[in-house]
């Protein structure tokens, strides 16, 4: 029996375009970020080996189009999809632009990657994503945030920030590294682990001490810099002190393999944090979006029934409340292109 009567409000099939929220029980994904030369690839290599030895193999995805050699078995490789050199030639781009373009191209197919991850999730313990060397190609690009967000909206996702311990011995470098880490934390809002790599070269205990004791870091800072920025640096180190409080840190050496047990513990803890913090936030956004769609749908339906054009705004009474509601939601959700948004605003104002 068909429910096509005009009085029924359930004539339209339920919209399935919206995801139903992340699957929190799935195996986590780990995004490995870090400055160029901090040892991201080596870290991933070592972690892969470590997990294989434990008989809990990971699922590895390489997102660096410019890397010449990947020293670990990789499951999905961006280089299979886009050829970095070809992009450079075809679009006449510099190295930086080409990396961005490769990521953008990859991004258009990323839903397939996520599908793959979800399908294989029974066979691996953790999914590792190695990112391009240029950190801002990932953190300051549209594709980077799309990849991060779509991962996080599908299953638990953790960000790992790799720091080169040897370079971080310089307090200024250490500070700007930590500020950058902090900025990534604010961008992604995902659970965050700082990994001090290369502990075989320099024991990162100095860093841990700096992080625990603000005075000590201050002293180190005082020794190296001019008075000009001292004041600011001191305030900043106070800020960072706050940052360290809730921060998970791990010291590893990708050469000797020390500290990788801690990495796994940290990941497990972060997944819990993801469930507690990220999921409610995501669900709120989702609920908002659903409500908006609902309002929109109702509007359309009513207009359809009246045989009026969809964007005609003269509607029967009783709709005002919904629109007010929509109005408040609108400034929080970024929907699409500039033109769409301007149109939308114009419509709301006219009302």
């Amino acid at each position, binding site marked *: 029996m068909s429910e096509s009567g005009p009085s029924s409000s359930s004539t339209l099939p339920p919209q399935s375009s919206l995801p139903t929220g992340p699957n929190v029980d799935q195996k986590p994904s780990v995004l490995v970020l870090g400055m160029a030369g901090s040892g991201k690839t080596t870290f991933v290599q070592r972690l892969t080996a470590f997990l294989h030895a434990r008989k809990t193999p990971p699922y590895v995805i390489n997102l660096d189009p410019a890397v010449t050699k990947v020293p670990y078995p990789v499951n999905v490789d961006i280089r299979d999809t886009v050829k970095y050199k070809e992009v450079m030639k075809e679009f006449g781009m510099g190295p*930086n632009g080409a990396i961005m373009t490769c990521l953008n191209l990859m991004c258009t197919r990323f839903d397939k990657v996520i599908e793959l991850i979800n399908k294989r999730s029974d066979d691996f313990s953790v999914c590792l994503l190695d990112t391009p060397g240029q950190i*801002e190609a990932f953190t300051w690009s549209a594709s980077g945030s799309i990849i991060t967000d779509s991962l996080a909206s599908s299953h638990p996702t953790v960000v790992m920030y790799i720091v080169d311990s040897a370079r971080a011995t310089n307090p*200024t470098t250490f500070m700007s590294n930590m500020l950058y880490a902090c900025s990534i934390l604010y961008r992604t809002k995902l659970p965050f682990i700082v990994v001090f790599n290369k502990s075989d070269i320099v024991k990162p205990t100095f860093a841990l001490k700096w992080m625990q004791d603000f005075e000590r870091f201050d002293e180190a800072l005082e020794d190296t810099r001019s008075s000009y920025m001292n004041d600011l640096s001191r305030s900043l180190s106070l800020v960072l002190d706050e940052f360290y409080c809730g921060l998970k840190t791990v010291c590893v050496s990708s050469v000797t393999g020390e500290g990788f047990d801690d990495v796994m513990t940290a990941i497990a803890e972060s997944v819990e944090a993801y469930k507690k913090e990220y999921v409610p936030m995501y669900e709120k956004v989702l609920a908002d979006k659903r409500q908006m769609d609902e309002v929109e749908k109702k509007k359309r339906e009513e207009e359809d029934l009246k045989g009026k054009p969809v964007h005609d705004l003269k509607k029967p009474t009783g709709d005002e409340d919904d629109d007010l509601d929509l109005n408040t939601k609108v400034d929080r959700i970024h929907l699409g292109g500039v033109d769409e948004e301007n149109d939308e605003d114009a419509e709301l104002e006219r009302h």
Partner: protein
Amino acid sequence: MKYAQLVMGPAGSGKSTYCSVMHNHCLSAGRTLRMVNLDPACEVFNYPAVVDVRDLISVNDVQEDEELILGPNGALVFCMEYLVQNLEWLHDELDEGEDDYFVIDCPGQIELYSHLPVMRQIVDALKSWDFNVCSVFLIDTNFVLEAEKFISGALTALSAMVAIETPAINVLTKMDLLSERNKQLVDEFLETDTRSIVDQDETAWNEKHRKLTRAIAQVLEDYSIVKFVPLNCEDEESIDQLLLTIDTTIQYGEDLEVKDHYPEEVDPEE
């Protein structure tokens, strides 16, 4: 005293566009800016550069070299280190006179500032050549359209600032590409104090990081050096405003002498 703006920012934030806009703007205002390209990986730019680092070394040269097997990143670092070893070349090329004003287009990689000492060395060299240097850090406005992302942007700018220790102006570029609604949002961010922006949402994440956010907001407020200036490339007024801010920061024009212009004498023999 000479003056220099160091134009920095992540890839795609609009550095080269900024440079060409500045150049054209000053040209029409009768001011001469001397443009410098310090990005060895850059392909094209549409401003006339008096100095181009690619004359010394370019990433392509390095990557084509068969003995050095370097990826794009390693090649860039190699180029910059080579430049630092040849600072005299830069000095000769700049060939600066009194009161000259340079705009220097720098490479975007944050590693060059925070990890490696190269940019710091270049800045120090400029300072030793009697330059007043100011860094202009560009951020694409499209990436800061949320309170948390706004803070993230401020922190990124800060991490570069701390590393090179120059006065800094942070610029929000691509304002012309925003919808009206987002323009209002950015205005709101710029006008209200940072603390009230971040106290709005009550989510678990915010709850956990409240103290940290407050601490960051405190610093951003106390040290007004981390202020953002919006730039709309299509609006002359906005460019003027920004230029004024930068000029004030590097004290350009404070002891400028009045110049009188005579028509150039024409050599009768020519």
